[in-house]
């Protein structure tokens, strides 16, 4: 779950990481009122789930109420890469002496936490990594040991930050590591981490991705969940508890298991079609789940055919077939359906479907044949 900047800053602040005072607002009047409380100059920042806000005109400095009114008016409603700005964050504009980069994430190869720190902040870290890899100081942290102050200090020294920033950086990094581990984040990134002319170190931005699997132990996450941006199809699937990713093709895909669903999307592409989505209905494909999945697919106006790909392991083919038939009785499906059932009790499943076969519902014995048929139907 990706947090908006202001949520990331709230998250950081709950771990005592210094951030600028600010307020999240949704109207121009509230933006001006917030700026008056905070004191000028302020920065007005678009709150969207995409990068490149600055270039798109989504970050502006305002020295007084008139400028705040003007910029907030321009930014609210702005379209940044397809994301409409509904909220802006108004914060006191900090004086910046130097800009650094700091982050924690999991290194899946090393199976350890990876901290990255660079004196070259404020820019895309990928660009720094490519052009000047030595400018990034890395530290691998065993989760059992955690990050010690001694290790953090050596790491900061290795990154060659301004010596005036050392104590402040060590303090922030220790807190950021706590936020990352105890806060159950997949990523905690500060870019830029700034050194002020007055010597304080401070998080000027916040990029936080939380691990959805840990939601059960964090009550406060519901507020974050409420601002997640999904397209209509994704929201409908999310409400039904389905694993769904919207794509831009015409063949609706339903499969059981993430691997098989990915594989189904691949095979549709391989035979010349374009999948409309990735949808994993999981292991227990009962009528309820199947009906929900068909509804979600059916509501996508781009879908011209539907490919249901089921491998019966524990889930039996006949139960799946019954589920599909029941679902069809409940949902009026507009696009023709092609089904492939294999594995446990596949024969019985195919027999059940045979009784209902029509132009709108056909069964194919293999994944490849079913994909070809679905793609042909979508092209009609």
């Amino acid at each position, binding site marked *: 779950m990706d947090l908006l900047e202001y949520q990331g800053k709230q998250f950081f602040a709950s771990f005592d990481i210094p951030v600028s005072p600010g307020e999240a607002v949704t109207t121009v009047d509230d933006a001006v009122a917030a700026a008056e409380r905070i004191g000028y100059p302020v920065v007005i920042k678009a709150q969207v789930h995409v990068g490149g806000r600055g270039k798109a005109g989504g970050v502006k400095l305002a020295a007084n109420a008139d400028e705040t009114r003007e910029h907030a008016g321009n930014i609210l409603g702005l379209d940044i890469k397809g994301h409409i700005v509904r909220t802006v964050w108004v914060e006191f504009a900090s004086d910046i002496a130097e800009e650094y980069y700091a982050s924690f994430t999991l290194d*899946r*190869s090393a199976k350890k936490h990876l901290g990255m720190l660079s004196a070259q902040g404020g820019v895309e870290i990928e660009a720094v990594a490519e052009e000047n890899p030595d400018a990034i100081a890395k530290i691998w942290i065993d989760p*059992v040991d955690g990050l010690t102050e001694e290790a953090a200090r050596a790491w900061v020294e290795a990154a060659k930050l301004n010596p005036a920033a050392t104590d402040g950086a060590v303090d922030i990094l220790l807190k950021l590591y706590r936020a990352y581990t105890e806060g159950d984040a997949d990523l905690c990134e500060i870019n830029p981490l700034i050194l002020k002319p007055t010597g304080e170190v401070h998080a000027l931005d916040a990029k936080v991705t939380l691990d959805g699997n840990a939601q059960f132990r964090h009550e406060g996450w519901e507020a974050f969940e409420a601002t997640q941006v999904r397209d209509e199809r994704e929201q409908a699937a999310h409400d039904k508890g389905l694993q769904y*990713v919207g794509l831009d093709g015409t063949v609706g895909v339903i499969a059981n298991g993430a*691997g098989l*669903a*990915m594989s189904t999307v691949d095979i549709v592409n391989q035979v010349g079609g374009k999948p409309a989505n990735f949808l994993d209905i999981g292991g227990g494909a009962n009528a309820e789940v199947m009906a929900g999945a068909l509804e979600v697919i059916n509501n996508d106006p781009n879908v011209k055919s539907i490919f249901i790909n089921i491998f*019966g392991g524990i889930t039996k083919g006949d139960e799946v077939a019954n589920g599909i038939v029941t679902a069809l009785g409940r949902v009026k499906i507009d696009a023709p359906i092609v089904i492939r059932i294999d594995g446990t009790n596949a024969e019985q499943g195919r027999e059940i479907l045979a009784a209902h076969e029509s132009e709108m519902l056909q069964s194919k014995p293999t994944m490849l044949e079913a994909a070809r048929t679905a793609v042909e139907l979508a092209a009609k």
Partner: protein
Amino acid sequence: MAIFVDENTKVVYQGLTGSQGRFYGLRNRDYGTQVVAGVNPKKAGTDVDGIPVYATVAEAKEATGATVSCVFIPAPGVKAAVLEAAEAGMELVVVITEGVPAQDEAWFFNKVKRDFPGTRILGPNCPGIISPGKANIGITAGEIALPGGPVGIVSRSGTLTYQALYELKLQGIGVTTCVGIGGDPVPGTSFIDCLEAFEADPETKAVMLIGEIGGSAEEEAAEFIKTKMTKPVSAYIAGVTAPPGTKMGHAGAIVSGGKGTAAAKMEALADAGVKVGNNPTEAGELMVEIVRGL
């Protein structure tokens, strides 16, 4: 022979008294697995269809000689369950549970590796392990696998594992052991661990590897195959056409920053001499060719 588990393996189920644990525990026993105990501190002294329930894994081991544990505990309790199994000296801890927080996984992987080197974790979020005809620990439907070898399977995906077992069965090809390592960010057992074991197993003559986008586990496996393996390998990678940055179901299956793409993985594997199929059926057919040529 098989790797990691066989007909002599005695298994304790942590969470046998829950609905999932009971269903699969009994199913595994019906398959022929030695399901010798369940663990639940609140239900010690009772039994599940004749399988005795103990308060702790240590007590279950003491009473039954179990060496492997299978975990069906809900995600919030997995960290403690894995640690308990390791402390009790289990040689293998198979974690079926999905939805385990990544911070917990990273912690218990490193903790067990350091303090309990004799314990191997498999999973979390995996279908388990089956040595067809000998032992089935987890949620794989045993009847879709043909016993006897000569193929070993290692896979990051559940349903694609079943697909692979089934395609080989249709061709009359048996499997020594099929290991589902799971799709989570910190899998306890890696592709390389399994490839190493298959390479050392005299009955396994060829290996089928099923990977997914994300991470670099397949690339590392390719390097191992290139430098350390003598047995032929066929492979399939799911997610060739997944859009970058999109999380596709598995916590691990995400392409970020151009890394971990299916194309890069397929290239690395092909470069290591692996026969790479474009879909599961093709990978199965390639394995048939390999087996016929043995």
